[in-house]
């Protein structure tokens, strides 16, 4: 991955009294697949729209390829957007839709025809030139929207929840399709989604956002395995988040029991949050576990079973390929490597505050 292509510096944006983004700093590297992930209202779409030029920030700068483009209108920016509901022009044929940007730029007819062919082939929709936009299925419209954007050879493609309107199977297909496209085109993708699985599947880098602040930036593995706070842990996958105390380096106490861990530097006897992924909880016979519990719920999820185990007053979420029926007495064991310690926020506000890179 290359240099910083887009650099957002100190971006703030509010609508009336409502603060949407507060002093956001973020850079996007060339050829990166970066995903802005967060619940609705977290500011991810606003961030994308600021990059696209559809919103202007109250403070801060947008730097693109070394140039300040904060005040450049969208039509002058070297990037294209794929909108949530595709925004295809329904009064035009597919070919006219794809040709729109090229015609505006005054390209020759031969060039445009070539590009249309190429783009349709790229999105696996050869021969759709003369269809009308609204005669296509959602997935097909989605591909046309992408085709329409990429014929302009943008350096960056912005995608605003583009898979949100598709059904599950189609969504998964399109995820692979997007990865393939990105690799073939070799350009930067900035992707917005609230679906953590989508983010984990496709991204090089994930930016987790909440209430206008960046919570964590990292690779999918990094974000999943080492969430920096309870919000990230909770938002990315399922988690057991248990309040506890850091006795000393590599030793944490929660639910009245001491557990070994690998984290250091939190100080002695400091309140912390402990994150344990459900698949990292091992169910063993009662005598072999660190603490004892009873299975209270059991659901079959396909690849694994999901169980709830009541132990020391906390209901643990456990995923395992082995089934333990409801009522079974079990022991709970966690590998020290799988215990993730996070600083405990003192207040709600602090929970939202950014942890910029």
């Amino acid at each position, binding site marked *: 991955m290359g240099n910083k292509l887009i650099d957002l510096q100190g971006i703030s944006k509010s609508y009336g009294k409502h603060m949407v983004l507060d002093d956001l700093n973020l850079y996007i590297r060339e050829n990166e697949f970066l995903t802005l992930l967060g619940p609705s209202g977290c500011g991810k779409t606003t961030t994308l729209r600021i990059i696209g030029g559809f919103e202007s920030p109250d403070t801060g700068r947008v730097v693109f390829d070394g140039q300040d483009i904060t005040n450049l209108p969208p*039509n002058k920016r070297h990037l*294209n957007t794929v909108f949530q*509901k595709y*925004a295809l022009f*329904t*009064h035009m044929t597919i070919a006219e839709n794809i040709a729109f*940007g090229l015609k505006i730029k005054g390209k020759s007819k031969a060039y445009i025809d070539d590009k249309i062919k190429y783009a349709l082939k790229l999105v696996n929709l050869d021969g759709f030139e003369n269809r*009308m936009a609204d005669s296509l299925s959602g997935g097909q419209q989605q591909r046309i929207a992408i085709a329409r954007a990429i014929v302009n050879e943008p350096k960056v493609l912005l995608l605003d929840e583009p898979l949100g309107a598709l059904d599950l199977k189609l969504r998964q297909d399109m995820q692979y399709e997007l990865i393939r496209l990105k690799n073939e085109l070799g350009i930067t993708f900035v992707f917005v989604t609230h679906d953590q699985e989508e983010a984990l599947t496709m991204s090089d880098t994930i930016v987790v956002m909440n209430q206008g602040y960046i919570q964590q930036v990292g690779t999918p593995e990094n974000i999943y395995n080492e969430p920096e706070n309870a919000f990230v842990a909770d938002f990315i996958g399922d988690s057991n988040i248990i309040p506890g105390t850091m006795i000393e380096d590599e030793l944490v106490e929660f639910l009245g029991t001491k557990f070994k861990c690998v984290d250091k530097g939190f100080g002695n006897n400091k309140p912390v949050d402990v994150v344990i992924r459900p698949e990292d909880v091992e169910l063993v016979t009662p005598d072999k576990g660190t603490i004892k519990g009873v299975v209270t719920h059991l659901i079959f999820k396909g690849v694994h079973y999901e169980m709830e185990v009541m132990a020391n007053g906390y209901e643990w979420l456990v995923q395992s390929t082995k089934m333990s029926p409801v009522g079974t007495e079990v022991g709970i064991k966690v590998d020290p490597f799988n215990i993730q310690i996070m600083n405990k926020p003192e207040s709600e506000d602090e929970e939202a505050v950014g942890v910029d890179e």
Partner: protein
Amino acid sequence: MKNISKKIYLALIILFLYLPIFVLIVASFNDSKILGNWDGFTLNWYRELFDNASIMNALKTTLILALLASIIATVLGTLACLTISKMKKSTRTIIMSITNIPMLNAEIVTALAFMLLFVGLGISLSFSTVLIAHVTFCIPYVVLNVMPKVSQMDNNMYEAALDLGATPFQAFYKVTIPEIMPGVLSGFLMSFTMSLDDFIITHFTRGSGIDTLSTKIYTSVRKGIQPEMYALSTILFVTVFVLLFLVNYGPSTKAKKSVTTFVFKSKMRVAMVTAVVLIFGVVGYFALKDDKNYIGDLYVYNWGEYIDPEVIELFEEETGYKVHYEEFETNEEMYAIIAKGARSYDVICPSDYMVEKMIQNELLAEIDYSNVPNLQYIGEQYMTSAEGFDPGNKYCVPYTWGTVGIMYNKTMVDDEVNSWSILFDEKYEGQILMQASVRDAYCVALSYLGYSINTLDEDELKEATDLLISQKPIVQAYVIDQVRDKMIKNAAALAVIYSGEAIYMQEENPNLEYVVPDEGSNVWIDGWVIPKDCQNKEAAEAWINFMCDPEIALMNFEYITYSTPNEASRELIEDEAIRNSQIAFPDDAVLSRCHVYNYLGKEGDELYDYYWTMVGGASSE
């Protein structure tokens, strides 16, 4: 069984809805002037329609008005929609309700409100005021049609265009407008249709000289609706029908593509532009044609069908004045317009009592007779009669005159007719037609009782009222226009009628005879007057002088068949029977027992109206 009754029911409904229109369309191709007599198929009425300059002028006004109003309303309405759609939902709902209300509001209320507004603001009614009113009532229809398209449109579409490199203007022109075009087109067509067939609002807001097809049809009913009007109405109906068809079936989902491509594919665009250019071309041709040797404008306000249209053209050619000719249906309607100052005219043709009222209310200017040398051709006796309402002959030059009398059918009445008493004879129960106008009805009763037709004595009026009420059971109907058709078709035996109509009716049905009863009757005079606020007195006097020209008076006499006070003109009548007709030109003995109606004053009018309401004459139609 159920199916058949369903079909019958449907057929009945369609019949109920479209039978009147069907009759109208058939009548427009009927060679006979008389309703109900089928004399064979003809296109004559259509030919006469297109030869009639004043109708073509109204057509021109209607088209320009509808086109301008719908274009302006479409632009304003569409922009409004684009703005409204950006509002908060709560505000949007309120604004949408506000724009919808004018559509449901009673048209007469809207019309009155507009007239009050314009008059109140001191804006004199003109083409612009009609245009403003039309634009206003068209906008809600545009919003109604465009709004759904705007809401349907993906908000991101405009941004997508910007994103692809379009400037804001390009994005608006190439994406937003085409996306909502089906709605805009429907809105435009709907507005065009609404404007095209609007009558009430146009009637109340138009300035002098402005006539649209609908106001033209309305004002021409005074002398009975001419068959050209059936033809005109047919054309209007077909036009509106086609436009509505386009609105409803054009932008349907099925045809959506074809309509959107329709507007933006070059071929159709060319067709549309050609159509617009054609309309403007035709209109422009008419407009230019009018413009030779122009020296000024003259606004004339006259009864409907009360002049030979050719006379107007001759006047224009001879003098160079451009005539804006307007028609009214009753003296009272005209008076309201003039007294309020809503529209100003240069020359008007009211009846005797109305001239008196206008003199008393100082609405008239004295005529400078040095500009009316042709006055010499008007008979002395008529000027004397006119002194009854215009002492000193300062304000009014007689144009037509006549008597009120009885027309009867010789084959249906065997008694000698020389008294009003025959109208109260039960022998003719169901055969009698009365005039549905207060003064004429009371003229009959008061003359019969031997009282003055201008009486203000309550006892006399009461007696006359009782007489009219007791007569009602034997009266077939109180009528205005149908009297002609009914008498000609032998549908009634006796009718109260104006002498002017009698000549024409006699030509159509030789069994009809006209009599001015021995008890006396009304002699009426309609004459030209110049209102005080006239803009071009010189032109008005030129017009009056022109009307007094013997040749011109003859043309008018032959066209409208009401007696002319122009002695020289009477000498020119070729048909001896008419020249010596006792109907058109009764001898002095008849005239001496007739009286003009006087203006009774406000209280007098109210008194007559009060008793007239008790008779309920008009309601028995």
